[in-house]
């Protein structure tokens, strides 16, 4: 029967259209979250830079080593893996999990007891299901980094290292390179490698070389400053990872919306063709009938 194909096509177009509306809404939400997240990251940078600069100063001049620098034989290793809670962000989580799993498997193969601290449901579910040892799970961050959450994870990292629960702590997260690119990385957090203290961009060398008075003393200050620095580093990491997540989601939702649009165009063309074909067939019928008379 002519026209049946048209009906089915109409139905499909409607369904694709509603999917498109959903992906479009998600794209808008991700864009808004990305914007906020990026703003927060920028706002947090001055503190982090000043702190890093101070640590840099101290690590250059303080002779008293902190236990946080202590390199021990690695018997137990902790991986902090930061992913998202929800999917629909392209290959963001898969890339991270792949990198993390490779590193974790290598660590296990070395004979090191390896545990995982996961931030985000995706990593938590993935590794728990595959019988990896979970140290802690944080599934409720919902893509938002707060100073308190930074403290929570950072505090756990510092405390377990100092208590000797873990001899090494590594961090797997997605670096925010640009809107389109998020680079999964695996970094050593503890023990602090002296050259791993990221160089804050020094605007004036003169200030950097000042001879400071330290009150009470360098060693005492170091003891308070280093954990603070580490917690802040974890906090900045969370922020960067979540910014990456929102960027990845926005990119993939934009792609999905575009694809839906293309699909709708193709389906509409096909529907119009079929409708035209049906009309032509009907006309031919009529003309044929008239000629036969």
């Amino acid at each position: 029967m002519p026209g049946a194909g048209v009906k089915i096509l109409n139905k499909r177009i409607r369904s694709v259209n509603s999917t498109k509306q959903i992906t479009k809404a998600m794209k808008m939400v991700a864009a808004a979250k990305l914007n906020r997240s990026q703003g927060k990251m920028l706002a947090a940078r001055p503190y982090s830079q000043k702190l890093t600069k101070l640590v840099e100063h101290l690590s250059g001049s303080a002779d008293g080593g902190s236990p946080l620098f202590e390199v021990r034989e690695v018997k137990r290793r902790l991986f902090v893996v930061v992913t998202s809670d929800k999917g629909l962000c392209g290959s963001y989580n898969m890339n991270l999990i792949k990198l993390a799993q490779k590193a974790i498997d290598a660590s296990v193969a070395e004979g090191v007891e390896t545990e995982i601290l996961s931030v985000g449901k995706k990593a938590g579910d993935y590794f728990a299901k595959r019988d990896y040892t979970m140290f802690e799970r944080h599934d409720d961050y919902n893509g938002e980094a707060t100073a308190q959450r930074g403290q929570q994870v950072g505090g756990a990292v510092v405390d377990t290292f100092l208590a000797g629960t873990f001899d090494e702590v590594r961090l797997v997260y997605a670096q925010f390179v640009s809107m389109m690119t998020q680079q999964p990385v695996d970094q050593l957090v503890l023990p602090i490698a002296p050259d791993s203290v990221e160089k804050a961009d020094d605007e004036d060398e003169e200030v950097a070389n000042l001879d400071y008075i330290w009150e009470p003393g360098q060693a005492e200050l170091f003891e308070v400053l280093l954990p603070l620095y580490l917690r802040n580093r974890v906090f900045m990491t969370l922020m960067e990872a979540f910014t990456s997540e929102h960027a990845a989601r926005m990119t993939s939702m934009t792609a999905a919306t575009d694809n839906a649009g293309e699909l709708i165009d193709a389906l509409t063309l096909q529907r119009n063709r079929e409708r035209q074909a049906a009309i032509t067939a009907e006309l031919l019928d009529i003309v044929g009938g008239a000629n036969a008379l």
Partner: protein
Amino acid sequence: MKSLKVNIVTPEKIAWEAEAVSVTLPGSDGYLGVWANHAPLVTGLVPGVITIKLNEGGQSKLMACSGGFVEISANAVNIMSDTCEDAGEIDAGRAKAALERAKERLSISDAETDKARATLAKERAEARLEVLDLMER
């Protein structure tokens, strides 16, 4: 008269930055006043009130600080604090409640209560209330 550049940063934002005549800070070894041409210094901060004298006329800005670090160099005062709020940002009700809670915790004498944490919480709440109190005068 030379002025100082004061930057107060917290992990979440720049809390305040401007030129000032002098700053009084709650250092870990007691309150210290900083004027222009101060020697380079790094010290810890404890919960307390930061008083920033904005100009010669004696106008000043008060902020409640919850502890952190300060770095003084080349007429710049960089304050790194976990939180830092002025009178407008402080919630009086919350600070009072926090103070009560901390006092209550300090009055219990058992090993489980974290006394050091409660003391810090009490000091933070007191600093906030002091700022409000000083502003009212």
